[in-house]
């Protein structure tokens, strides 16, 4: 059943009264079973949205609802039980001396029964393919592995929503791929909602929906396919489309595309069809 997991209603926010608004009258909603990507250049307000979603910050104007609960200083513990976050820097989010202890941390805080805890640790590490690293020290893992353990730690508390706030920004290409494929698996295997925050359009290819932020306002809400066609407009707000979209957009006056390709294979398939028609 589709229901609104997260609702932002006319939300405005600024860090201090004499400072400019970071978010201006932002409204959107995220349904269950959706992967939504929030895009924007540095300073567009995208990370502020993440912090508002789990009550690290509170709006100056407007309302935010997470699973029907309004986010206020009184409800943050109920909200945080539903929302898990993974941040940018893999080194800043570890507390345990082993991977197992680290994943256990959130469960211990919630007073989860030991047997349940063991089961959840196992399941969440399996979900991110890190089950072989139970007794490893987190700081000796690669960046991608660290972020996967961080995701497992969040999964273990069985949230309804996981927010990845530029979780791939400090990783190398191998680490990025690990995270993106992990995220894709989670979607299929668990029913958790995903919000990924990024400025890299290569990472949104598989998302259901995209919210693009600019100067604290929602610039557009659309699908990855439609967004890839808006190359010129995206460049004016400091973003850029992937290579496949660039080539496609330049071939449109010659080749007919039934839909905007997201991957190289789709583009080449279209070109092949085009040139085999005589």
């Amino acid at each position, binding site marked *: 059943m589709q229901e609104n997991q997260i609702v932002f209603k006319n939300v405005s926010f600024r860090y201090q009264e004499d400072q400019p608004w970071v978010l201006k009258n932002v409204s959107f909603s995220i349904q269950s079973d959706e992967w939504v990507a929030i895009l924007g250049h*540095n*300073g567009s307000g995208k990370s502020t949205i993440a912090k508002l979603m789990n009550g690290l910050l509170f709006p100056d104007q407007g309302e935010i609802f997470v699973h029907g609960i309004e986010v206020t200083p009184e409800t943050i513990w109920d909200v945080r039980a539903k929302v898990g976050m993974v941040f940018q820097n893999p080194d800043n989010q570890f507390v345990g001396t082993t991977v197992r202890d680290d994943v256990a941390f959130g469960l211990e805080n919630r007073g989860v029964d030991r047997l349940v805890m063991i089961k959840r640790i196992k399941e969440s590490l399996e979900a991110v393919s890190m089950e072989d690293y139970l007794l490893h020290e987190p700081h000796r893992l690669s960046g991608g592995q660290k972020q996967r353990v961080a995701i497992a730690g969040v999964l273990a508390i069985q949230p309804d929503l996981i927010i990845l706030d530029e979780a791939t920004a400090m990783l190398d290409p191998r680490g990025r791929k690990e995270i993106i494929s992990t995220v894709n698996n989670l979607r299929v295997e668990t029913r958790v909602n995903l919000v990924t925050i990024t400025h890299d359009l290569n990472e949104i290819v598989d998302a259901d929906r995209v919210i693009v932020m600019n100067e604290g306002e929602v610039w557009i809400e659309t699908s990855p396919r439609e967004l890839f066609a808006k190359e010129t407009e995206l460049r004016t707000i400091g973003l850029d489309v992937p290579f496949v979209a660039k*080539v496609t957009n330049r071939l449109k006056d010659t080749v007919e595309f039934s839909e905007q390709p997201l991957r190289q294979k789709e583009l080449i398939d279209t070109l092949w069809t085009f040139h085999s028609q005589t």
Partner: protein
Amino acid sequence: MDISFTDVSHIYQQNSPFEYHALKDLSFSIPSGKFVAIVGHTGSGKSTLIQHLNGLLRPTKGTIEIGDYRLIAGEKPKEIKGLRKKVGVVFQYPEHQLFEETIAKDIAFGPKNFGATDEEIAERIPEVMRAVNLSETLLERSPFDLSGGQMRRVAIAGVLAMNPEVLVLDEPTAGLDPKGQQEIMDMFYQLHHDKGLTTILVTHSMEDALKYAEHVIILEGGRKHLEGDVGEVFTQKQTLKEVQLDVPEVIQFLMDLDERMGIRIPYEKQTIDVLSNQIKQHLKARR
């Protein structure tokens, strides 16, 4: 300045339980004036390598020559300060190293340490501010009032103010948005040509290496896996795959075009507009 590494190894904490071989028998040479990319995964030895370029680390084995300077294993290097003046290193997240009250003072710190006079510094500051596209009106402001991208430019200006002949860039675009990334890389490319620098770019981005560099060195596990002209290296799909690197997107695309459709377009650093026109011509010719 010409740079050469001959059989260079670096071992951290040698003869201890934590002994770690970060570089293993590494040999390569970079002629003066080249733009070279060093590509490899985390842990491949990239950072260890660049710390040798200005003598922050010394080889455990082998010899390094940078212009007239030599770093030889087991010998105390002479004139390390002279080397550091000639080799400017922009480390990762260089904005974390800003500390002065004003932008002008922060930029002046490096050259002052290397004995530049106040007059020389006063002359260089406007020049480097222009090079990094920052307005001189900012000079008396605190660097901490700036945006992340601007702070990074100030830190880079501080390195340029030492008038280096070799510029070493360690992941200079990390954390910037696409527009910021392109602006910074275009700026370095411009400086490289205008000042006749030898530029060494450490990057994860195969795309940036292909776009800006002439020569590329691929590291894996502290060893040189592959080296050559960018065009040659980046078409060796199998060899790159061995170290879990992908060929750049544009190269992969051109390979697939050839394989699936017999359309053969060589990669010559052409812009996407030119490339798209070439594809159109091929498509039209075939119909």
